[in-house]
């Protein structure tokens, strides 16, 4: 009974933590928008949209795949072997061993924010745009998952990867908090080409919010999220297999 209660407290503090975090982030954005009227052409509700589109993709990641970052613990302690000796793919076993309920808080926050933004901006999407919206969320989840997995795989060689993970997350946060066009050229190149987190929210949002005319020379980038996600899935599958080949148990 006491254990149950403890879990419930854990659940509640978790939900409250996630909500406070997001409210604080949005307040910062709100302060800047109220002071400068817009952020490089992005109004308050467009910023909310950008932020919440990222959160929605992230919520699925955090619900199903959050524990990817714990891979290093399994490697260091030698408990990874348990996934290798069972008659199923070690990948499925590793990913399936846990879900993280906090994704629900993210999803709730994201859906509320997006609904408010959709109403306030007076958007009316056609079927094609709804399709793009759905694809963008799933692509966002896949992009974050595959990047996270590839970084976790570093641990097969270096033994440690958690710090690299927190670095990925903090670059990710910058993309979530500000439109990418506010940053300098170097940063834009990095989050488009090298660590393509801008495809989680920024590029699809350009199309969904009608900030880019469909004829514009860069409009195609807005539709590229699923392609980027697919490429990353293939790449991370290769990395995972190479890493497994390289794996030798820590002798546990």
């Amino acid at each position, binding site marked *: 009974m006491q254990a149950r209660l*403890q879990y419930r*407290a*854990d659940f509640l*503090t*978790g939900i*409250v*933590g*996630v909500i*406070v*975090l997001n409210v*604080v*982030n949005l*307040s*910062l954005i709100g*302060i*800047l928008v*109220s*002071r*400068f*009227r*817009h*952020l*490089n052409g992005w109004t308050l509700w467009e910023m909310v949209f950008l932020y919440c589109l990222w959160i929605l993709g992230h919520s699925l990641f955090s619900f199903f795949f959050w524990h990817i970052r714990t891979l290093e613990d399994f490697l260091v302690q030698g408990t990874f072997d348990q996934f290798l000796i069972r008659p199923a793919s070690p990948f499925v076993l590793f990913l399936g061993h846990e879900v993280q309920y*906090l994704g629900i808080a993210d999803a709730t926050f994201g859906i509320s924010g997006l609904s408010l933004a959709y109403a306030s901006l007076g958007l009316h999407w056609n079927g094609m745009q709804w399709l793009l919206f759905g694809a963008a969320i799933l692509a966002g989840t896949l992009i974050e998952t595959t990047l996270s997995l590839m970084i976790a795989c570093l641990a097969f060689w*270096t033994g*440690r990867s958690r*710090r*690299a993970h927190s*670095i990925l997350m*903090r*670059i990710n946060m*910058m993309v979530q908090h*500000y439109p990418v066009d*506010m*940053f*300098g050229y*170097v*940063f834009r190149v*990095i989050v488009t080409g090298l660590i393509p987190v801008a495809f989680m929210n920024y590029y699809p949002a350009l199309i969904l919010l009608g900030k880019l005319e469909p004829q514009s020379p860069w409009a195609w980038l807005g539709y590229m999220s699923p392609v980027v996600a697919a490429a990353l899935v293939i790449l991370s599958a290769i990395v995972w297999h190479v890493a497994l080949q390289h794996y030798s148990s820590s002798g546990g």
Partner: protein
Amino acid sequence: MKIFWAFARQAFQFISAYRFNFFMEFILVLLRMYGIYWVWRVLYTQRPGAFGVDLDQMVTYGVMGMALELFIWSRPQWYMANQVKSGAIDTDLMKPMDFHLYMLARSVGEVLIGIAILALPALLVAYLFLDVQFPPDLWTGLMFAASLVLGFLLLFHLNFLLGSLSVVALDIRHISWAYFSMVRFLGGQIVPLWLFPSFLRALAEVLPVKGTYYIPISIYIGRLTGSEAIRAIEFQLVWLAALVLLSRMLWGWAYRRLVVQGG
């Protein structure tokens, strides 16, 4: 004092064992400095008057805030929570040193190494490429240094209070997210307090976290000068005294609970 440095050195060695991570951190700090530099530049062209200070000051504020991210690295409360959970806290308590000072020594070690191998090199790069300024004169520089030390001590004691709570009550992992986002926000790490709307500003002005980022950096860029700066440092001192007292009391209480529970 000798023991204090020994523990500080231990933390130093621990962190320097992970050199690859530090290289990555260095790149990230530069990237974030570059990011904030552009954010302020873009906003400045939008409405030049809205900052209340000039662009160079604002950029310096942002870059310093990023460099001092390492204040938040040192997380004694996580260490304490883990030690309590695993029961290893009893070995810490057996060490021939006051536990509060022991935690402080660890944090000092972590932050000093962070400043030496991360913040200073990154600031040097920022100085060369991002129009970051030096403090206008030596006196300002000295006040900044004093205020920075106080800022670190303030944050350490807030962390320590949270860590003491973890002994008695609860899993603080989730609370920590909210806590750190509040420290960043109300501490003015990215957006300085003078840009806040009035009701939020009134709140942030009385809380101790503004001593972590807002006061030292504002002194550095010359936004708080003369008697204002002195008053700000007094504000830090008063809060620090209160927090030290509170930490001793809360830890003493938590410690007795620990002993009763049998470690």
